[in-house]
């Protein structure tokens, strides 16, 4: 057993000594596209990091500090969170099958806490459930958790099990990843971990509302909203794994553009290859993880986002009046006389405000950001998988330059003159529409060209 003084000196040495097998930041790519066979590649936690460790008598020793954290969810939007070691989600803990793991947890919050190792098979007393398996870790105290990794590789998590409603709503969570001793085949060249989170932060405020159950307004990948999310940069041809963890109040269907991937893992571990499910969207349930894998053979900037559309909006308000189809020009003039500076919006959709800078409430972010072609009206759980044929590093390579002839192009600005494919309809049954001439299936009349 290490005493406190030895423990602190070991941690200091580990920090000073730099990275070991666990990286502190994403690897700089060498000339090689593929990882060396046999050894799993380190996990890249976009906008995050992995937790360093020291070795003491065969034990892998980690130290987590539960503490308040200020996190900029996206540039200009600073939030009062709680996390571990100065970040939310907490640093990713990476271990191997069979490792002996010792984790010190120090509580610098003002209330008690504990850490539950979600999905880890361990002695009951190490399960981290305050009141059930241990006393709560009081402010200022440090507890020790020790267990042997006695299960196959899996993507797992850690989070508090003390006042969870508050502590998890404030951002206390992290990945606990068990690597196989020998990398799975086919070998993965890039391995990403993305933690999903939901927040209720009222406009103009900076502290999440822990009492919110359903009406969240910010959604994050690793506690970042687009445009604050780091891209997932891969070289063309690399095999990619993306691990998702979800400790929110909702499931999240995470959709990847441009690819068909396979579901390859859950909280329970690796799915046998014969049972891999092809998909382009993986639904990550609450309290679970999901791993997907694919080969990044199609270059480009591929959107990766939750497909619950509200989850890709920043600061979405849900009780605005529906003004679609409502002509407002004259009543807008009247309102402008009473409230100078007012302008109507919403009658044609929500894109009216793109690019307009009319000031913002304090600590809020724009609804859209400039992309390479137009405003990207996205936020929240949105990032980009950037696949490039040539990379000198995994830093953001900028926007993808689409080869000539492979992009959607403008044909006409006149909707009435735009070419439309001819369709046919029944004079008696206008709801019957066909792409070719023939007879109406209901009455047998000859179909006639449909006027557009």
């Amino acid at each position, binding site marked *: 057993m290490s005493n406190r003084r030895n423990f602190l000196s070991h941690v200091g040495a580990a920090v000073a000594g730099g990275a070991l097998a666990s990286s502190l930041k994403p690897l700089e790519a060498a000339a090689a596209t593929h990882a060396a066979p046999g050894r799993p590649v380190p996990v890249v936690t976009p906008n995050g990091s992995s937790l360093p460790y020291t070795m003491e008598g065969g034990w892998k020793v980690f130290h987590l500090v539960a503490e308040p954290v200020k996190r900029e969810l996206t540039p200009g939007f600073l939030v009062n969170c709680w996390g571990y070691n100065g970040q939310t989600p907490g640093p990713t803990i990476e271990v191997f099958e069979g490792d002996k793991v010792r984790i010190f947890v120090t509580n610098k919050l003002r209330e008690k806490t504990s850490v539950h190792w979600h999905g880890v098979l361990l002695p009951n007393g190490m399960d981290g459930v305050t009141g059930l398996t241990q006393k709560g870790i009081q402010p200022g105290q440090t507890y020790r958790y020790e267990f042997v990794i006695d299960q196959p590789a899996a993507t797992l998590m850690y989070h508090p099990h003390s006042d969870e409603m508050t502590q998890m709503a404030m951002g206390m969570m992290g990945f606990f990843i068990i690597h196989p001793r020998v990398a799975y085949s086919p070998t993965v060249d890039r391995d990403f971990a993305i933690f999903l989170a939901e927040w209720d932060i009222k*406009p*103009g405020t900076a502290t999440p509302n822990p009492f919110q159950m359903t009406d969240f307004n910010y959604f994050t990948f690793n506690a970042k909203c687009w445009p604050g999310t780091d891209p997932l940069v891969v070289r063309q041809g690399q095999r990619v794994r993306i691990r998702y963890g979800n400790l929110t109040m909702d499931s999240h269907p995470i959709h990847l553009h441009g690819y068909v991937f396979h579901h390859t893992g859950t909280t329970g571990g690796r799915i046998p290859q014969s049972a891999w499910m092809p998909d382009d969207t993986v639904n990550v349930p609450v309290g679970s993880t999901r791993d997907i894998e694919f080969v990044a053979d199609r270059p480009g900037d591929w959107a990766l986002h939750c497909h619950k559309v509200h989850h890709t909006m920043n*600061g979405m*308000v849900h*009780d*605005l*009046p*529906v*003004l*679609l*189809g*409502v*002509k*407002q020009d004259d*009543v807008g003039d*009247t*309102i402008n*006389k*009473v*409230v100078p*500076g*007012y*302008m*109507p*919006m*919403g009658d044609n959709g*929500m894109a009216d*405000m793109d690019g*307009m800078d*009319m*000031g*913002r*409430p304090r600590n*809020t972010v724009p*609804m859209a950001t400039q992309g390479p072609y137009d405003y990207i009206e996205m936020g929240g759980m949105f990032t980009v998988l950037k696949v490039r044929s040539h990379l000198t590093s995994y830093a953001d390579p900028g926007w993808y330059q689409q080869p000539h002839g492979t992009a959607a192009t403008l044909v006409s600005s006149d909707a009435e003159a735009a070419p439309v494919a001819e369709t046919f309809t029944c004079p008696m049954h206008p709801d019957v529409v066909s792409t070719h001439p023939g007879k109406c299936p209901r009455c047998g009349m000859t179909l006639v060209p449909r006027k557009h």
Partner: protein
Amino acid sequence: MKTSSANFLAPSMLVALLLARPVAAQQNQPNQPGQQVPPGNQAPAGQTPAGQKVQPGQQGLQGGQVQPTQLQAGMGADSGLQTAVQAAVTNYANLQQALAEVGLSQADLVQAGLLKNPQFFFQFRHPDRAGLINNTEYSVSIDLLDALQVALRRRVAGTALQAAQARLQEAVGQVIARTQGAWYDVLAQQQIVALEESVLTASQAATDLAQRQFEAGNISDLDYDRQKAESDTIRLELTQSRSDLDIARHKLAMLMGSDTPTGSDQTVPAVPAEAWDGRALEALALQNRGSMVAARLQPGVYQGQVRLARQQAGLGEVRLGFDREQETDGVTVVGPFIQFNLPIFNHNQGAIQTAQAQLQSSQLQLMATERTVRLEVQTALEQVRRAQQAAAILTNSLLPTRTRIVQLSLLHYNNMQLSVYQLLSDRQMQLETSKMAVQAQRDYWQSRSELTRAVGGQLPAGK
């Protein structure tokens, strides 16, 4: 001696009266309950105790220097208000009763200084037998008691006239305060109507938008009707406010004696930060209030009437005269005579007791008037303070906060964080707060006018 048939003040006379110092300030010593009028204040016939000659047809002048007092006090450079007040105090209808009382007192004073006419007696009798001459007799006599009582009667009537003038001053003060109150009411109501019109514009815009949403199928008829009910309610309030404005204008016009409703393009002035000491104002009121001056003078009147009644003592007239009679035998007898009632049964007890009761009542009335004046001062001062505090909170805190709310709401609205209905609602709240601020300002100036009246027309500068 001719007396004028018009026993009422001409407007110009009245303005001069208003510009004179308060009655009490002109006396060497203010009368105290039961105090006799000092010898130095006993005016000769046809003069008020202040020494100003009162000629028939020239009534009410108090003399003294013209000082900016009641008309100018509290009005500053507001010429519109000055015009309104000037018109009101020169409008006979506002002071009818008080003016009539002064006229009557003036007539009483003239009458009190007049002696009864001497009485002439003549009789002629013819004897019923020859050889005798006709009997003739004539006499001339005066009422001696009447002559002896002239001075006292004049003093009593003069004091009564002063009391009546003091009550007139009190009435003028009330007219001024009412006119000032009516003036500020008009100004405030004009501003309130303008603000409510803006509130209605905002609400009707919201209703218009709701109707379009309803027609587009975006909201239910229930939601639309709720919005419409709100704007209809505001429209109702505006209708009533416009009517209140009309009434206020008519009320002001009536006070000014005009047939045309009166308005102004001015706004209610801001509320200054000034404070007064209640006790000092009470002392001022007790000295200067017309009602107090009159109440202090009135016991003197009744004291005089007690003396007059005692002097009568049942004697009736005391006639002193000279009689000459030529008798039928040619003898002429001449000589003085005196004639009076013997006070055996009637000592004029009734009149004496009546006067004594009136004296006692007037002394009690003086105490009651003093209590009333003190209470009026304290009440008016408290109302001024209350309005000042309300105006300070509204102007310095609540209204700026509401204005900031609208600015922030617009910011949130522009970032799709707030609905247009919430934005309009915030603007309406700001306008409603502006309305409250105007009402507080109005309340201040009205209660300040009342305080000025309560202290007798000259409110010292506050600290």
